[in-house]
């Protein structure tokens, strides 16, 4: 799960009502909506290592 950092409060609250308080997810800087495809690729590259660690069960 990757969330833009403007929505952390909502994401944490959602985790709580879904029975997973403290659920760990990754963040990317807000905003995202106006990015070009190239900028989205840069964002993906920036977070890729953390995604790999998370999938491997490590705390990113």
């Amino acid at each position: 799960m990757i969330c833009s950092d403007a929505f952390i409060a909502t994401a944490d609250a959602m985790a709580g009502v879904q029975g997973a308080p403290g659920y760990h997810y990754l963040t990317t800087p807000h905003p995202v909506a106006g990015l070009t495809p190239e900028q989205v690729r840069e964002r993906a590259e920036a977070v890729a290592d953390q995604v790999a660690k998370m999938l491997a069960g490590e705390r990113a």
Partner: protein
Amino acid sequence: MATPPDPDAAREAIEYCYEHGWTDGLPVIPASEALLEQFLAATPRDPDEVLWRMDHLDRECTVRTAAINAAMAGCLPEYFPVVLAAWDAVMRDRAAKGGGWQSTSGPAPLIVINGPIRSELGINSSGGIFAAGFRPNATIPRTLGLMLRNAFGVVPHVFDQTTQGIPGRFSICFGENEEESPWEPLATETGLEPGTSAVSCTLTRTYEFVDNRHTQDPEQLLNDFADTLSRTGSLIFRGQSAGVVLCPEHAQMLADAGYSKADVKDWFIEHVGRTEADLRRAGKDGVSASGPGARSASAEERAPADSFTPYFGARKDIPIIVAGARNAAISMVFRVFGEWSNTSVPIESMAAPVAAAKGG
């Protein structure tokens, strides 16, 4: 002479509600069991009936919970069937069902009431429909806001993600001025029997007035509306929906010139929109070039600068309501947040069951 109520005891009860986070910032009426019973007696519906469930939040609202919030909002018990119809009406809106209540847009429900219930409850449909001063107009929409907060837990900065919101978000509710409208009422247009007391509701964003006391030419008036309807700022996706709350004077002028409501809508379908050059100037030409879900700016020239992108696709995208006073030519354009259901919900009160109504 009866002893007046104790203001200190009242304030203590009001503060108790604040302390429990049950208010929208303004004082609420403390709701007793006895008051709740009066509200539940005003509707034939089962108090345990679930009005709506938000699965993702694991919260739901029953008729009883809605009644508590109606009482807290300051409704009289006899308003409660209107509250229930308003809730049912807005939840027919695709956006309301799809998470619109939590949207960064912070959309406002627009509640329009037709039929004899308007005079029975003293619902304002003439001067000051968007202003304050009328208890049902103020408390019925406020109830929806309290239901979201208290039943569903949609509170600001957490599950309510509103960036700025709409001024008067939970205060937009009025009767259609059927008596001074040249056309059939909104609820009749959507398929209910004439004379049915009913509620129509959709989620909305922008409200902007069109003050035109300048012309007697209907086409000039329509052009003035089209200019406001064609704003680029509110353009998000291709496929827009926007409506007009026409004052009686504007509506009558158009009707006198031979326009039906459908004619006005058809005129807007043809004329409301912007050129490619206009959209490009605002960074929104991707909207004209791509599919219905696009929110991208275009990367390259996709259409001639003078090509025209119409905003509306069908009459159902352009709700037209007649309301306000017949004292000046001032109307209101509003932007629909998602997609109005194009239906109206009959009001089920104990005195007037809904059996006579059709459609809905």
